[in-house]
């Protein structure tokens, strides 16, 4: 799920930048440091939308660098256990399939794929129902439920299921039950 949040960060700046463009320099540095990163708490920072405030700088003992507390607004993506969302299938194999929802990768194990879907190997590996009416392959759009979220250094990884009601391949305009 995407959120719009206000986050805070302490930015350190070298004295060479103390001049008329100090705030601009801090903003550029903030965007470079923070956009695209991921934390367990807030998820992925997708984009900084606005710098709300830059506090008074404090000179650090011994180095001359100055620390500024910066408050900024940003769009983050944070998946939650129990959340239901739509994703694109990126890889299918006999263990299950991988799907991508924005910056996050989700793995759905074959144990959490409905029993009436079987793995078919070949040029385009896929999971298909016995009557061939529903197929999951690379680039299919699926609706899944996240059942586990793991944070790894700078990445979030999820496991999901499509075994519950109203989950599975998205067939516009009819919803699959």
């Amino acid at each position, binding site marked *: *799920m*995407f*959120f*719009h*949040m206000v986050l805070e960060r302490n930015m350190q700046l070298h004295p060479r930048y103390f001049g008329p463009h100090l705030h601009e320099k801090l903003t550029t540095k903030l965007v470079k440091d923070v*956009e*695209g*990163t*991921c934390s367990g708490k807030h998820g*992925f*920072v*997708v*984009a900084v*939308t606005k710098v709300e405030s830059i506090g008074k700088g404090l000179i650090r003992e011994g180095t001359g660098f100055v620390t500024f507390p910066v408050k900024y607004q940003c*769009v983050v*993506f*944070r998946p*939650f*256990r*129990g*959340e*239901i*969302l*739509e994703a*694109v299938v990126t890889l299918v194999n006999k263990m299950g399939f991988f799907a*991508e*929802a*924005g*910056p996050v990768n989700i793995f759905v194990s074959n144990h959490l794929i409905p029993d009436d879907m079987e793995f078919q190997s070949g040029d385009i590996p896929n999971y298909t129902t016995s009557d061939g009416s529903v197929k999951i392959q690379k680039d299919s*759009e699926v*609706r899944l439920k*996240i059942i586990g*979220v793991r944070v790894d250094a700078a990445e979030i990884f999820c496991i999901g299921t499509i075994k*519950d*009601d*109203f989950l599975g391949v998205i067939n516009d305009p009819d*919803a699959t*039950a």
Partner: protein
Amino acid sequence: MSAEEEENAAELKIGEEFLKAKCLMNCEVSLILDKKYEQLQNMSDDPLSQTSQVFEKSLQYVKRFSRYKNSETVKQVREVLSRNRLAEFELCVLGNLCPETVEEAIAMVPTIKSKGRFQDDDAIDKMLRDLSLIKKFE
């Protein structure tokens, strides 16, 4: 709270910070990221070099999974959903998945049945029908 173990979006247990934060539907994020991308295009010849992979993947994702395309309709959708006493998170899941039946809506957002916010299923049905009307006339 031992975060990872107790967290459960199906029960709206997503932590104080996120419960209070503004939630965004995919269509709203699409408008925000488009604007940002435009700003980057105006400032440099090669906007893609300024964006992270996270940004690009998110942009592709919201463009693909936005049910509503223009900003007027997006505003209407939020307005229709806000008429009911929904939490931000619940509102956005409904706006993203656009369930067609009451049964589906309850499966997607189990918490709408709790706390007596909807007198009965008809109230939920009305909300879903209002939502699908917007899509029809987009």
